[in-house]
């Protein structure tokens, strides 16, 4: 289920990146920002939000076991 959700998440982000509907759009947002550039600036903010969601919802808990102050950090060095 988690894998399916992840695939859907990546597919949505990749699809949103390809804003073909703005391909030839030369309108200016706020009078100085071309629409295509404004969209991709928004996409960058969305990517940051998506990363925030990933960190909050999908952070692998087992990684925290290797923190320096974790009860057992599994050292097995050569």
């Amino acid at each position: 289920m988690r894998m399916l959700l992840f695939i859907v998440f990546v597919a949505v982000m990749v699809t949103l990146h390809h804003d073909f509907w703005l391909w030839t759009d030369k309108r200016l947002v706020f009078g100085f920002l071309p629409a295509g550039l404004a969209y991709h600036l928004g996409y960058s903010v969305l990517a940051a939000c998506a990363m925030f969601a990933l960190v909050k919802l999908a952070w692998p808990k087992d990684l925290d076991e290797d923190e320096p102050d974790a009860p057992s950090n599994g050292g097995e060095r050569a």
Partner: protein
Amino acid sequence: MIPALFVFAYLSIVVYIGIFAFRKGKDSGEDFFLAGRKLGQFVFLLSLFGTNMTAFAILGSSGLAYRVGIGVYGLMASSSGFVIPLTIFFIGTRLWRLGKRFGHMTQVQYFRDRWECSFIGTLIFALTAAMLVPYIIIGVMGGGTTLEAISQYQTADGATVSWVSYELGGAIVALVVMSYVFFGGMRGTAWVNTFQTLLFLCFGTVAFILISRSVGGFDQVMERLAANPKTASLLSRERIAKEEFFSYMFIPLSAIMFPHIAIMCMTAERVTHFKKTVILYPLCIAAIWIPSVYLGVVSADQFPGLGKGQSDDVILRMLTAHSEVWVAGILGAGIMACVMASDSQILALCTMFTEDIFAYYGGKERFGEKAQVWTGRAFVVVVTVTAYLIALQLKDKAGIFELAIRFAFSGFAALAPIMVAALFWRRSTKWGALAAVIWVAATLIATWLIYNGTEGIAPKPGQPPVAIYPEWGQFLLRTPGNVTVYGFLPVMPMCLGSAVLVVLVSLLTPPPSRATLDRYFPPKPVAAGGGIAA
């Protein structure tokens, strides 16, 4: 002249940072190559970002935006703003853990141990080292060229001369980079990268505002560009092919496979440092790339009619023409910092050599850890001096190395499936990895040969692609700057082919021993009631 003084002040500061880091360091390999795995949140984020930000992010992107338009941001930056943090989240954190648990410092160390292989690891070392070397050479070349350009002044009779030649500029840059990498190791390099990124983020914003005021407001510039039929298309993506735009999404997969990025992931003190890093990464990319791309497009209004070679320095022209001399000076130092991004690559190459070759083949055992660190330092000197000598000999051949770097991006991206298989697929084997490595090397060589062999039929910018073998239809096309497969860049079939080969060949060959698999994929603990714990 004044910008050059700022640049020299900057160079002095970074040398001092290197020496300061040296005083803080210990004589252990882990301390020199990985800053003792103790980088804090702030330095980790900014140095990881700074390491990945090359001269292209500033100079190249604005030059390309001058010619192609605002689409450059979507093409190269916003895709990176999603894919790079995603790979850091899934791969970078796992590399950090493997480093902490097993003491790995390089990707090859991990592959050798994970797949119980020796020669295949050496082969991966050779391929990655070969793809890294052009960066180091181009870094020295860029240093010489930028210092020469920044130190230009007009003589009484109107002639433009530089008081720092290309040769001297290259030597100064090589010496400075060598000094702080030699003394400071990873700690010095990370601190310098942090300083460089801060410099850019702060003064880039100031310069952007000052330039806006100087040109009379960006709204008027944009209206002029939109009204001119020759420049109106710069406000859209009409000059970029859709297939090319799609293919570029594969390129950021290269980031995590670059040895300097992968090694940097092992320097964080805590895994929680990755959290803020992946969240802020897309915003950092936007903060650097949006002004660069935007100013590149604005330059088309301010300096119309520049050719390809001339448009590469439009950002420097904008700064000189529209900002205070002190801002131009500080940003000149920032641009210099970007050009000098070869520091991390030199350190990564040196880490790889000492760990994957020197230590692996018995050097550490025979001569001790202190000798290993000094071997690393000696290697820094050898690499930098060699890069400088090549930069002198091939001064006019920078295009070859720039092309090699473009190809290297595809090569590193196509190696990503190997890393994914190693980390997440228990059944993957060394033979699967070998098949993918051979595929990547072969396709890189083939693309290089086809590209060079078709320069005679390459269309000019704005002209449609040409079929390389007309009997094969649209299979292989030559565009002004690329070879494409059905319109898509080679990176796409390279990545897909690499992934398919890892899977197929792994399924046909025996997996590593149970003991090794249990080390990397520990069995889940059995719960008290006899069931499998969640």
